[in-house]
């Protein structure tokens, strides 16, 4: 899609450094926060950023509306990145760089030619108004959101050094009209569409690390079996059909193995198998329930839920079942471990006074921090690939919907608005398109 990717390599070091320093400082504040379980939340400092309305060129009557959409997507993406506090910049004619604390100005321009849309974006340092980055993209009209997402990711990368998440998606289960189906939407809630026509109970989708597959448990053959939906051919294929449950699938970070919960040997135990369902190996052996495995980003460890202590708690073991340790001790019901892609935190669902809340804890087992409040029940945490955002399901509006938040609990936003209940979200890896 890039037709002119002229990145300004001469970064004008002195001016850009100020922006980068401001963002790094915010990141440091992010990392140093101390919190107790239950009460404290902290504010991540955000870098102020000016975003100017998208200009348009040419005589095509659709240009103003498309430019407005591009501006909306760009502002939303930069806000959702969690790094910036966005303010609309004045038009060029009345811009006064001395009047703002913003560290940089984002400008963009849209054009239409031969049925194709072009979107050019630039980043200007403030107060010098020197251009420090320029990017341009071209796409069909229907893919305007995609190229605006791409431009946002480039800006995030330039200003913070981190990969953005604007080109990720979220898979989830929606129960509407009496049945469950697998859905997918963009990370900002747009473009929701149904993937399956299961016509049977379906739960717990998990996105493969290469983005091509969604593993899930379906009752389509009369019992709970594991399938993968292949986004390339839009078809589901059975992977594991053991007697009893085939549930709670989790892909290894290299995508070659799947950890899951099976009951074929009696009660629920955690197993690992190859991604095609071969070579099933049992990892746990306990009369209690062992389920909901998730991998550490290194692939060396697996966190899971066990009620072997008398109530569901989180445990961590080696990916071969060795070196078992208990992770959580607070509370009487801790479940649904999700290991941050950065490796340092594990998010999970914890019950407080009958309702679940999303909590993060250091992988060492210290510093549990409650991220959601008591409105409704909050379950099913899944991390964005940047390790800075968590998607989850909440019933706070009266029915279950998908929400996202920063990994410190700030900026909780709803992504879905019915119909029916939406839950079991799984965050995709980044897509390059």
């Amino acid at each position, binding site marked *: 899609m890039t037709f002119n990717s002229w990145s300004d390599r001469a970064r004008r070091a002195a001016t850009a450094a100020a922006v980068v320093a401001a963002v790094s400082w915010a990141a440091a504040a992010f990392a140093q926060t101390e919190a107790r379980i239950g009460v404290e939340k902290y504010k991540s400092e955000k870098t102020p950023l000016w975003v100017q309305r998208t200009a348009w060129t040419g005589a095509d009557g659709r240009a103003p509306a498309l430019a407005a959409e591009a501006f909306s997507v760009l502002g939303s993406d930069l806000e959702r990145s969690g790094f910036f506090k966005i303010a609309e910049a004045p038009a060029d004619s009345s811009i006064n760089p001395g009047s703002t604390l913003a560290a940089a100005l984002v400008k963009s321009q849209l054009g239409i030619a031969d049925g194709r849309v072009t979107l050019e974006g630039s980043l200007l340092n403030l107060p010098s108004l020197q251009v420090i980055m320029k990017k341009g993209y071209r796409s069909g009209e229907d893919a305007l959101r995609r190229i605006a997402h791409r431009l946002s990711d480039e800006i995030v990368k330039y200003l913070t050094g981190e990969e953005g998440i604007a080109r990720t998606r979220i898979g989830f289960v929606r129960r509407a009209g009496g049945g469950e189906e697998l859905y997918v939407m963009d990370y900002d809630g747009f473009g929701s569409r149904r993937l399956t026509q299961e016509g049977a*109970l379906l*739960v*717990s989708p998990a996105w493969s690390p290469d983005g091509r597959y969604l593993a899930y448990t379906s009752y389509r053959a009369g019992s709970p079996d594991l399938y993968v939906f292949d986004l390339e051919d839009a078809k589901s294929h059975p992977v594991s059909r053991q007697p009893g*449950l085939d*549930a709670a699938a989790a892909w290894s970070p290299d995508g070659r193995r799947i950890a899951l919960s099976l009951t074929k040997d009696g009660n629920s135990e955690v197993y690992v198998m190859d991604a095609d369902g071969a070579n099933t190996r049992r990892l746990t052996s306990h009369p209690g329930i062992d389920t909901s495995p998730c991998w550490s980003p290194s692939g060396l460890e697996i966190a899971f839920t066990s009620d072997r202590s008398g*109530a569901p708690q989180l445990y961590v073991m080696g990916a071969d079942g060795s070196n078992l340790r208990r992770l959580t001790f607070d509370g009487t019901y801790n479940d649904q471990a999700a290991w941050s892609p950065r490796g340092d935190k594990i998010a999970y669902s914890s019950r407080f006074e009958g309702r*679940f809340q999303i909590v993060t804890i250091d992988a060492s087992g210290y510093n549990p921090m409650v991220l959601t409040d008591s409105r409704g029940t909050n*379950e099913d945490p899944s991390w964005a690939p940047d390790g800075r955002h968590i998607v989850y399901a909440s019933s706070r509006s009266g029915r279950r919907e998908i929400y996202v938040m920063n990994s410190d609990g700030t900026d909780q936003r709803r992504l879905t608005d019915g119909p029916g209940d939406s839950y079991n979200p799984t965050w995709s890896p980044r897509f390059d398109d």
Partner: protein
Amino acid sequence: MRTRSWLAHSMLLLALALIVAPGCAKKKAPPPPVTQQPPVTQQLPDTTSTKPPVDQERAFAAQDIRFDYDKANIRDDARLALTALGKYLMEAPSAHVLIEGHCDERGTTDYNLALGERRAKAARDWLVAYGIGGDRLSTISYGKERPLDPGQDESSWSRNRRAHFVLQGV
């Protein structure tokens, strides 16, 4: 009319339960909560009005049993229903039972799938101990995904923490 006949069955089966139920030697089973547990009929295939006594016997045999929160042990108050089912299966050797394990909504998807499986297997184990061949009993868990009662209070939750019996081959 129907209630009276059903009550008569209940009393008969209560008497039977006191005689034959495994595990009842320790203490007497509490009176059956007959007024709170109407027979389940909607799952039964081939329901006809020509032979109500048989249908009602089947319906009674397939009563749900309930569980405590986050528990899968068979409660004392489940033994009457399990005994009725065991007796029915003894007398209907061609019958199979699919035992569904269910949970209330206050838990997570996958953990509740495992818990529902455990409940279904606890009921299965009880029936095997009663003398029913394991090849006639199959289990499936629906976790919290198929609640009987959509309410959000303890009375609804307690109805949803259940094993449900689907009679087949009769």
